[in-house]
């Protein structure tokens, strides 16, 4: 097991910069998820850690040892591919044994370890089957088995659940997490699915256009998005982002909205100021709630029933906002509402650079 250090990693394909200046450290035993839309550089970063792609510049260290330009075969890392990449001309047993054969493991030990891994993944009844006849989930398990069998320094997984059915994905998600907890291996997991990321990660790196927008625990990412991009990317529906015409002074606690019928809202206390028209207020739909004397007026334009909750689409003077409320309250289209939120639940962003304002540390 190992710690992976990535510093100032950069990769460009001709003019196109896939990854720019990424630096982060993945702790020993951590489940680290790289999350982002397709083309954001997450897979390229993973492939560079694996040695399948060579960086343009920067450095990768595995347990302090520099491996930046070492071939994949010499890094002792396992990689699970999105489409599994099981060797189609070998049966399950041979697929699992393939990494061990390479290092000249005696055949009695290979047999024992293959069966051990197969039991762990509950595929021991499939050992003599051809891989082409397996279901998606079983192929996934074989691919995982091939990864764990060598007891490598780290596991790299490139959207390993992407090719599975939605219902099956949840199950495999739990299995993966369980597997990680049992063997406590450093795992780097790439996905574009935020639910997978939230469910499994110890820490998440949200990437966009080759840049890490935010690196933190799932709850940090969800509750304190570092950029407007993260705020908009995470959550379903995502965070409401309302551009306010006000300027903001450092230490200011209240914002008086200038529009018709608007009131004064309490805001989180920032240590930074923002120029007029650049202030963006971010509130999650479940925190932006209708309230008798709320400062933000609006009119409901759509109601979407979701079971226990319903999502209201509300037109406010500062743009469209979504509110998630319990289904027990009845709301109708065209109804006027006033919205409010708790100050500590909100985020403030500076539109000019898209970054969150740094907050005063509040206790309690």
């Amino acid at each position, binding site marked *: 097991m190992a710690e992976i250090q990535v510093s100032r990693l950069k990769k460009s394909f001709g003019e196109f910069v896939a990854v720019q200046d990424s630096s982060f450290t993945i702790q020993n035993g951590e489940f680290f998820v790289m999350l982002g839309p397709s083309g954001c550089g997450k897979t390229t970063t993973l492939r560079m850690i694996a040695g399948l792609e060579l960086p343009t510049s920067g450095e990768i260290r595995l347990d302090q040892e520099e491996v930046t330009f070492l*071939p994949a075969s010499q890094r002792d890392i396992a*990689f699970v*591919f999105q489409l599994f990449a099981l*060797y189609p*001309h070998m049966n399950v047993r041979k697929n699992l044994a*393939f990494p061990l054969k*390479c290092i000249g493991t005696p055949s009695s030990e290979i047999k024992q370890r293959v069966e051990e891994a197969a039991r762990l993944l509950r595929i021991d009844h499939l050992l003599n089957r051809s891989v082409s006849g397996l279901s998606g989930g079983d192929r996934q398990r074989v691919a995982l088995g*091939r990864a764990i069998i060598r007891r490598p320094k780290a596991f790299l997984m490139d959207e390993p659940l992407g090719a599975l059915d939605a219902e099956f994905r949840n199950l495999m998600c739990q299995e993966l997490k369980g597997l990680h907890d049992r063997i406590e291996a450093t795992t780097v997991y790439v996905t574009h699915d935020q639910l997978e990321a939230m469910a499994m990660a110890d820490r998440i790196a949200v990437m966009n256009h080759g840049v890490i927008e935010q690196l933190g625990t799932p709850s940090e990412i969800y509750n304190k998005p570092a950029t407007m991009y993260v705020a908009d990317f995470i959550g379903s529906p995502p965070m409401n982002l309302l551009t306010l015409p006000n300027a903001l002074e450092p230490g200011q606690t209240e914002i008086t909205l200038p529009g018709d019928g608007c009131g004064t809202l309490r805001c989180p206390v920032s240590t930074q100021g923002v120029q007029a028209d650049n202030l963006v207020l971010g509130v999650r739909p479940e925190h932006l709630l209708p309230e008798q004397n709320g400062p933000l007026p609006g009119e409901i334009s759509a109601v979407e029933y979701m079971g226990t909750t319903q999502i209201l689409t509300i037109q406010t003077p500062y743009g469209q906002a979504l509110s998630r409320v319990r289904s027990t309250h009845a709301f109708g289209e065209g109804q006027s509402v006033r919205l409010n939120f708790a100050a500590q639940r909100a985020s403030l962003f500076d539109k000019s650079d898209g970054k969150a304002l740094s907050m005063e540390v509040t206790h309690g």
Partner: protein
Amino acid sequence: MSSAPPHEKPWGKRLAAGLVIVYALVSIIPLIWIFLTGFKSPQDSISYPPKMVFSPTMEGYVNVFTTRTRQTPEYMETLPPPETWYDELVRSRSMVIAGPSKFGQRFLNSIIIGFGSTFLSVFLGTLAAYAFSRFKIPLKDDLMFFILSTRMMPPIAVAIPIFLMYRELGLADTHLGMILLYTAVNISLAVWLLKGFIDEIPREYEEAAMIDGYSRFQSFRKVVLPQATTGIAATAIFCLIFSWNEYAFALLLTSGTAQTAPPFIPTIIGEGGLDWPAVAAGATLFLVPIVFFTIMLRKHLLRGITFGAVRK
């Protein structure tokens, strides 16, 4: 499902099957003619209308493998009784066997040169195709076009320069020379065909093997090659058919030690009249290896032709 019951095939399919059968019959008639003629006596072979029912004889096969001399009846009387069935057959035509013909050796030449150049084309072609498929190569497209361009004129157009070149280099009438020549002609086909096949094999397989600890070449050997067998088999058949059948260069560049069967078989005609059964026997034998090779690889060949279409 509202499809027709299994015994009732749609008429379109029937028509297609009918056409294929007619085409197969038309194609096979010359082969049947050659096969039958090989077992006819010289009289039967030239009778008109052609005899479909005749008493088969091995005379053609004996003649293609032997040289014979005509003897006077007086001399024949002095010989001891014939030792073998073919001695007897030849003597019934008042001739004796003078020795083996060159057919066996020419046939062997065909096998050496045909399979040798096929092996070399496929071997080099696979390596080149893999490199073109997987690596960044400067001027890749131009190189691929250059390789293809060697096919853009009939090879025989350069026969004279090659003849002169080979004479200078001492490659004329050598096995090596013919193998190199056929390889040069086949390699473009091999590279292009195989590149298509290797492009279809996802890179993830090799990457997985490299992650599993194997070097690039080991991954190629253990993971890419087994999956490329279909393409390799199909390519090998095409290469073999060309070099096996090639006539013009063989006629021009070989006359003795490295002469292949195609230029040799017609020379049988010249030896003592038009010996059609011997020519037909030689031609039949000449067909055997390629038919055998094709049948051996037919599974791959069929899959190879429909490769892109059926792959998941």
